[in-house]
């Protein structure tokens, strides 16, 4: 089972569907136009 680490601070284990994977990437890198309350 793979372990994925993004920007050394967000991690998860196992294969994830693409939308879920992207949500982890967004969590780690942030979005340019994300509102402060959007999560």
């Amino acid at each position, binding site marked *: 089972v793979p372990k*994925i680490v993004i920007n050394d601070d967000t991690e998860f284990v196992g294969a994830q569907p*693409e939308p879920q994977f992207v949500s982890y990437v967004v969590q780690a890198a942030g979005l340019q136009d994300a509102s402060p309350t959007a999560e």
Partner: protein
Amino acid sequence: MPFLNDQDATIVRNRFAKDLSHPVSMEFFAPSIGGLVLPGQETELADYTRQILTEVASLSPNLTLNVHSLVAEPEAAQKLGITRTPATAVIGAQDFGIRYYGIPGGYEFATLLDLIIAVSQANPPIAPETRGILRRLKSDARIQVFVTPT
């Protein structure tokens, strides 16, 4: 003894002929290349990885393997962001930042083939929505995938 038997080599050769649309170079870094081996250097894994990559590179005219020594070529390693070995940078028309650390044996051999083809095609099969989100990222994302050898 070769890593790939004749049957597997033929399958990989045919897959490359079909899917490898543009040239790809594999920049492989070993601790050192022959000669002096410093104490503590692990060379066996690097030697076996080099053998696998050499066989893979021989299966397509679109594939190039360049072998480097981390000790003798620190500038080349630094340029590609490589600090440990065995490491392989897989580079196509541009450097997408793909780095493979360790030995691509077992199930990971398929991973190596997939990433070589993905780099060659430079068009990953991701959804348009995903591309839209990734274009809006605030900063680069460094994604590391850890697997145990199988």
